[in-house]
């Protein structure tokens, strides 16, 4: 039950969820890159077109989609008139923008994967 409450758009946990997801993505990208470069580095000749970059880009897109979905859910919560104008609405608004910011940070942070080789 507690977890269900935490997932509601007006719950204060939403204030940190977006960038917590971003943080996990960021760690996964950096740690994944570092570990693979040590253990099974793609050939430098492949430049950015290798399985590692594709995987990292795929991860970026999945996280981006999740964050945008959460932002959309938060926006709907703010727009529905049932939630009054109090603290839950405040939390809903702030967390929606934070989800969007987290999505932007994910997209911008993931773009170098498309152009740079991973382990050089």
């Amino acid at each position: 039950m507690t977890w269900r409450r935490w997932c509601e758009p007006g719950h204060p946990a939403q204030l940190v969820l977006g960038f917590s997801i971003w943080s996990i993505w960021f760690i996964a990208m950096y740690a994944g890159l570092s570990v693979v470069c040590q253990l099974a580095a793609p050939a430098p000749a492949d430049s950015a077109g290798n399985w590692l970059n594709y995987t990292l880009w795929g991860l970026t897109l999945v996280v981006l989609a999740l964050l945008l979905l959460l932002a959309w859910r938060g926006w709907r919560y703010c727009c529905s008139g049932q939630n009054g104008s109090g603290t839950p609405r405040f939390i809903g608004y702030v967390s929606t923008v934070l989800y969007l910011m987290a999505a932007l940070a994910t997209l911008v942070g993931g773009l170098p994967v498309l152009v740079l080789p991973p382990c050089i």
Partner: protein
Amino acid sequence: MTDMKKATASAADVNKLAQIWANLPGWGSLAAVNHSTIGLRFMVTGMVFFLIGGVLAMLIRTQLALPEQSILSADVYGQLFSMHGSVMMFLFAIPVLEGLAIYLIPKMTGSRDLLFPRISALGYYCYLFGGIIIMFSLLLGIAPASGWFMYTPLSSSEFSPGPGSDFWLLGITFVEISAMAAGIELTVSILCSRAKGMTLSRMPLFCWYILVMALMIVFGFPPLILASILLELERAAGMPFFTVAAGGDPLLWQHLFWLFGHPEVYIIFLPAAGIVSTLIPVFSGRPIVGYRWVVIGIILTGFISFGLWVHHMFTVGIPQLAQAFFSVASMLVAVPTAIQVFAWLATLWYGKVVFRLPMLWICGFLLIFVCGGLTGVMLALVPFNWQVHDTHFVVAHMHYVLVGGMFFPLIAGLYYWLPLVSGRMPSEKIGRWGFWLTFSGFNLTFLLMHLTGLLGMPRRVYTYEAGLGWDWLNLLSSVGSFIMAIGVAMVLLDLLLHFWFGKRASANPWHADTLEWALDMPPAQYNFASLPVVTSRQPLWHDPTLPQRIAAGEGGMTDTASGRRENWGTSAVGARAEQTLHLPGNSWWPLCSALALAVVCISLLCRWYPLALLAAIAALILLLCWSWHNGANLAPVASAADAGLALPLESQSSDGPGRWGMVVTLLANGALFMALLFGWFYLWTAAPQWSAPAEGPLPVTLLLLCGALATVALWQFNRLSRQLADGQDSHLQRQLWWCVLTGSAHFILLLSLFIMAPLAYTSSAHDAVIMVILLYLLGHAGLVVVLTLLQALRVARGYVSKQRPYEPQVIKPLWFYYLGVYWLSIALFFILPLGWGPVL
């Protein structure tokens, strides 16, 4: 007539309140725990360290004023710049801002004190003793000389054989106890004891800033604590975490240090920005533009600042793609800062600005900090970063950000809240002289230093040859630094003199909107005679009669029958009053515990290990005794807390600030564990000569059996605490003893495995890390068993029962944490490596 009666009754209550909240007289004031006293002590001590750090800076600039000078030797210069950075960062910037927050937060949130006042006192003494220990090294001429970031191998015993590095590692870790204490306490206090009606959306922006700063301390400091412990273990016991030949890696230090170091910049900046966000609306005469956006900016800063640390390491040899991640993140952090800057500018634009003394410093801040931010974006660009790495350009940038971003707002804040502390106004004339001298001196010093850096002058050199194009720049920088010093001296003089010569301040002299200005000037120890109820973001603008109504006892918690220090416990989001909190009063436990810890620190420095062990045991006993006496009162008297509405005491409920405190402490503990995990995987994948044995050092089956015992103990504890929360306490003590027994069996088995493990911890980084994780687990296992044993004893004394079910609920998260960490450790340190096979 009714009003008269109320006022008379209120006067009697106020006298009783003053008696309850008073510090002990004379030497007894060392036992004071009240937030006003502790906050002011933090700030005054911080300013003393600031003066010492400033004198060191003057010596550095004197040495660099002309080429080829020999006023200071290379070694002494190394000690001075290392100590200047360390003192300013660890002994001035963070403590003084913590002190300000400790002093202000209860006043702003309509409370009488912070929720763990004895922890505040412990934090202060740890800070004071740690600071004195570090300063002693300077007096003895054996101060650390490896820079304030203590890079290995320069700080390792091979290249720094003296005790200088040890002073830094032990002293700073000691001081960090203070930062952690403040971080945990401020977080819980802001969330759990605001004025009734002060919902999250009505909370003053300063509180938002401090909340995020406190959480950043909770997550940001543990990596440095771990790094300091590992380096001290390497220096003292030869455990080679940072030695390449034994499978370690010096770059691990850089990662751990900057995992702390970059968030640290924002830990310093955020409270200062909180001051700016408080002052600008007051002097503009209107609410801040974009309150919600500023909150968004604060939270964004808190998160993104943890993703930038590698930009300090762009030159160490990191793949381009990884550099790109951190370069982008470094640029992204400009977004939340820009949001705040635009909100401040818009507020100034739409308001009618009154340029009093604090506003002058705010304007100086805006100019300097924006410039520092722009050079920060330049440094985020990898090619530019490579060009200016380790030059005076970086020194100039850092000072623009830290002095502009922290010192200027701090002085603005000191001038602003001065009348609250002293009841007197500062001198505008001396203050303005102080500002202009500081501002012009600062820019002369550091604006030119950008050029010195661009011309190639490296940092940390004690002298330079003439004719390299740096001579006139250095001379002017030094002149500027002395002008700045005169300015700072004038400011401090003004602050000091105003206590005697300042004009008496009128009530709410700046026409501010926040609750601290509803108090007497200077405020009483209990802050509010009656606890206020808040209905807007600007309570004093919304209801100018609020101060009179609070003083007349029209708020809550006016009853003093219990004779205890009382406050409301409110819900985190909606700020509904839910509990009556009995806050602990004056106590010698914090001072005694800090003294014992200081003995541990000094005896480790002197390598008197038996004494260190004895002092550590004494400290543990003192802390456990403290926890025993700080627990629930056997016969608590609940006050008529809220106009006829009887609120339960914390000890009579299943949730409360103590539990929140435990959870936040475990978050910090978890951050330390994650940093250790990072170190493990980092060494595994990146250390050039990492080697691991083909078979694990401990038999996995026994580790699994050991874990099974801990799981059973947790199951027992969880069951009994649930029953207690449901109002059943049958066989409670017996269940707790069973839990102690199972936990003890787990501890003994783990200890036996540890003793029998064939660990070559001085010749292998792998075994050294295994040793650290085993010690970590053993420490936690021992602690959780001892705390459970104390609970069993407290049941016998009647402190824990179905009427008082609280304490086991506080300990329960620790059991869950320990079990989670145990299984994770077994999986990642002992089982996973088996699957990978030997790495040679």
